[in-house]
């Protein structure tokens, strides 16, 4: 089932790229073979074709990685969603809040949420790491930080 869902998803992406390729100019100053859509069309057709084979084949070759109990799976999913949300919020706030403050808070919060112990140590590690990253990028390598 999971293979079919992936095949359908990637096939849709392939169709999207194929439609885009077909809407590109067919003739250029280098003739019709210099047209920008030729190669994207070829690659997207290959993706569609391979996904079609995956969709219609009988066997499901995906290894059963989901043989974990439901309770653990639910916990894993909760942690996954939590991590994703925290990452998104961090990236969203980048550039809006001072890098040193935002990163220190983000590192402390993420580590505390997932580890749930050693709060003082985590806070100190987070501030130290943030200062280290800041110093390394902006002072040693002279690169801009958000």
């Amino acid at each position: 089932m999971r293979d079919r869902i992936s095949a359908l998803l990637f096939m849709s992406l392939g169709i999207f790229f194929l439609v885009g390729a077909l809407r590109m100019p067919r003739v250029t100053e280098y003739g019709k073979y210099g047209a920008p859509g030729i190669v994207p069309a070829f690659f997207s057709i290959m993706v569609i074709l391979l996904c079609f084979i995956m969709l219609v084949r009988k066997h499901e070759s995906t290894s059963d990685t989901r043989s974990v109990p439901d309770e653990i799976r639910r916990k894993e999913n909760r942690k996954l969603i939590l991590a994703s949300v925290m990452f998104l919020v961090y990236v969203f706030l980048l550039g809006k809040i001072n890098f040193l403050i935002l990163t220190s808070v983000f590192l402390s919060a993420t580590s505390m949420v997932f580890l749930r112990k050693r709060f003082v140590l985590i806070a100190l590690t987070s501030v130290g790491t943030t200062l280290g990253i800041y110093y390394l990028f902006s002072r040693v390598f002279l690169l801009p930080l958000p």
Partner: protein
Amino acid sequence: MTTLKVFFQSMGSILTNPVFLFHLSWSTLLGIVVGILPGLTATLGVAILTTLTFGFPPDIAIPMLLCVYVGAIYGGSRTAIVLNIPGTPANAATTVDGFPLARSGMAGFALNVATIMSGIGSIMGAIFIVSLAPALGAVALRFGSWEFALLAIFGTIIAGSLTAPKDPLKGWIAGFLGLMIAMIGLDEIVSFPRYTFGNIQLYGGISLLPVLVGVYGIPEILTSLKRVTKAEVVLDFSTRGKKLSYLQTIKKNALNLVRSGLIGVFIGVIPGVGEDVAAWVAYDAAKRMSKEPEKFGQGSIEGLTAAETANNACVAGAIIPVLTLAVPGSAPAAVLLAAMWIHGIKAGPLLSIEHPEMIGYVAAAFTIATILMVLFGLIVTRLFLKILLVPTEILMPIIFVLCVVGTYVLNGRLFDVWVMLLFGLLGYFMRLNDFPAAPFVLGFILGPMADTNIRRALMLTNGNVSSFFTRPISLALIIAITLVVLSKYLPKRRGGRA
């Protein structure tokens, strides 16, 4: 001969430059740490360091990346031996005999043997970079648009086949997805904006680094953070057991060393296979040829030697096609290729013209990376194993911040960070469904090469595709592609009938 001269000159210039040595030392240590930490791979290590080396000139950045690569593949053997957890996939074969050796009270001996054998494997690989790469480069200079176009497709397909052995179809889908997504941005022939939707940020295409970091880094971080049950780390460096001479061990395993080194290099040269396959093949060969095959799996020095020699020799092998054909031999080599492009070094057939000194320089840097790896391996890695005591929950958010910052500094725009997150999501979905990331990245790297050369070849022949079949190298590549595809399905069909 010129390459050899450059090799020795480069060795001299790097070894006498304290700044270079400092940077190479910490890069090697970083590589070892990345290797030691289960979950973090050499690929991720090279990707993260690429973000750190923007401000560096290529003549220092490339050796640093090599140091991380070499260090990480080696570093994985530490946890493989001490904890029975391969630090990187390349060290999976090391666990088979390394851990039993450690359990029998020979952890220290096994760690040092692995260090020495990895060093010898790497040096063998460096010899092949100097000797084989220029010859392969000379052949590559005969390539025209037809060959380049097919080479890009061949590289992607073979990477797909080899990184998804259970289901090559998924590997090929991933590869063609990479090739397809590489089409975003202005095309290189008529500068037509493809799939940009008027977004000015997409006109230059999607940068390689956000894709790399996203596809490799984010899935790793998410997978580590979501894990509910974690193994407890107990470090034991007991030194009891019989004392064995290292020199005697090398002498006794001389043939095994040479065979495993050669297997490692040649498997490395094949695009997309990588160090893990090299280690297993060498391990299998050593077991077959051994006078004491029954000891394999019980703590055989021969088995440990084969695995560790081959995986490090494979690193050099994987670099050879990167330099000469712009086709990476392994996933970390794909990132290395990307990093070289980011640093303005266009690896591939034209490298010997644009940067004639590069092959010798890379071989020299590789040798120095090996020397540093052995030195650190023998002196400080036991101390570095303590890093395993740092909880994943603290480490992974830090790695995430490094991924974000590294991606941001590429162009100084948050757009790249969002692109990284998007590809991270895609990478996670792919990992969840057993689609390998290596062919995707390879396809993304080789996409522009395929695009330009397919169209150029068609323009040259006015649409006549027969040239693809009449040029010898081109025909050989077509046959190779066909064989790779057929070899994955014909035996299955026969098996199915039986």
